């Protein structure tokens, strides 16, 4: 039986199956909220599933120019695999994540850059001008949002004096008021996440009115379906990460109530992400760089300084 549990973790919960199901739900929730904010009706709740099934049943067209066909075919799966791996290191409904070690916060952040890198490679191997420009934008954007995101995520860890996501969550559930210290960091990471998830105002790599489908221009059928799926799953994972690092995870609960709390909190995060998406226009890539380095990075450094002062001066023996 002991051998079957890891399989269950990877394949069902909190791995593939749950991520796919909840990812599609979050996509629907995001689209519905976005639609209502724009005074539209929005899609029905099975629409994301219908889209996925449709894409899975479509023919795959591989352009003649693709440099490495095997790589072109395998990259979407790598993105999904990376997202699922990251999910295993974040506490979802319980206080402990499945894979749990000192420093898993850093590991999660690094593993979550893998989808971005695969998107770059996807565009680069497609050999179309739109995807080439898209890939350049993916990388440029990565350098802009990754540093503030990383720094902002480190601040709660410094205050909690642990690099373990589960420990950080536990720390804030026992000291809920200390979450207020990290408000700046929370704001910075929510904005930076729009860059990571490539959403308005930072949907520059696949800005449809400029470069059509961006990096994904040449993808079709099943492969494109999996790319879309990877992005949805990534949204769940980063929402869970924010929940664990900034918002105290499941507040020491586990089981059904922990699960309900997890769903409610992640949906709140999705709501904020949808709100940011609805409020702004897409910026240009150089404006995005300037914004990230001029405002987000100093703010996250400020957050780290606050956390260090809090930890070492105000409450040295928490």
């Amino acid at each position, binding site marked *: 039986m002991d051998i079957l549990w890891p399989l269950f973790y990877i394949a069902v919960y909190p791995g593939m199956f749950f991520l796919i199901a909840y990812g599609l739900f979050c996509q629907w929730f995001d689209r519905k*909220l976005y*639609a209502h*904010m*724009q*005074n*539209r*009706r*929005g899609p029905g709740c099975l629409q994301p599933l219908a889209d996925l099934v449709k894409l899975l049943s479509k023919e795959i067209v591989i352009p003649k120019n693709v440099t490495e066909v095997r790589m072109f075919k395998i990259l979407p799966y790598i993105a999904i695999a990376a997202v699922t791996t990251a999910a295993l290191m974040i506490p979802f409904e319980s206080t402990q994540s499945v894979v749990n070690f000192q420093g898993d916060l850093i590991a999660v952040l690094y593993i979550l850059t893998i989808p971005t890198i695969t998107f770059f490679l996807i565009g680069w191997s497609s050999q179309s001008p739109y995807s080439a420009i898209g890939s350049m934008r993916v990388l440029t954007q990565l350098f802009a949002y990754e540093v503030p995101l990383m720094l902002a995520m480190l601040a709660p860890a410094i205050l909690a004096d642990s690099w373990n996501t589960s420990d950080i969550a536990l720390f804030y559930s026992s000291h809920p008021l200390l979450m207020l210290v990290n408000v700046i960091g929370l704001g910075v990471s929510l904005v930076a996440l729009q860059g990571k998830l490539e959403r308005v105002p930072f949907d520059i790599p696949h800005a449809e009115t400029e470069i059509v489908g961006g990096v994904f221009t040449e993808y079709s059928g099943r492969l494109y379906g999996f790319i879309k799926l990877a992005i949805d799953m990534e949204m769940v994972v980063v929402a869970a990460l924010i929940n664990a690092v900034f918002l105290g995870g499941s507040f020491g609960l586990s089981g059904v109530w922990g699960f309900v709390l997890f769903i409610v909190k992640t949906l709140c995060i999705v709501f904020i992400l949808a709100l940011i998406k*609805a*409020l702004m226009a897409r910026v240009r890539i150089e404006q995005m760089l300037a914004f990230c380095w001029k405002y987000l990075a100093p703010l996250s450094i400020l957050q780290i300084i606050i956390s260090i002062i809090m930890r070492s001066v105000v409450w040295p023996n928490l």
Partner: protein
Amino acid sequence: MAKPLKAFGEVLKNLFKKPATSQYPVKKHTPAQHYRARIKFTPEECIGCGICMRNCPAAAIKITQINPQDKPQTLPDGKVIPAKRKFKCVIDLSKCIYCAQCVEGCPKKALKSTDEFELAAFDKNKLQDEFKHPDETQK
């Protein structure tokens, strides 16, 4: 001058508002007073002046006489019944641009605009809107 998150209030207000989307196939749109859609032809009224055919921008309307041999009749008591020409009309809905110039030009109001706007069909032959004269159908 720049105020970040300017649309915030409006977005939140709309979040709780009823969507503006019209539920078209479920709830039908009520066309305005002068709506121009499918043209209806009343064969009894037509005098065959051909103004509609001459002015139709799309050449979509075709009115033909169905009783070419009809002549004025003299009854035994000396009364003359004038020749009543009868017409039928075919309107090609795939050509019609719904400007309703024919309706406007018709001196006898034999042509009328209706509200019927759902005219799509899978078969092009179904778009031939034929208005037969009642006498013709009796034969």
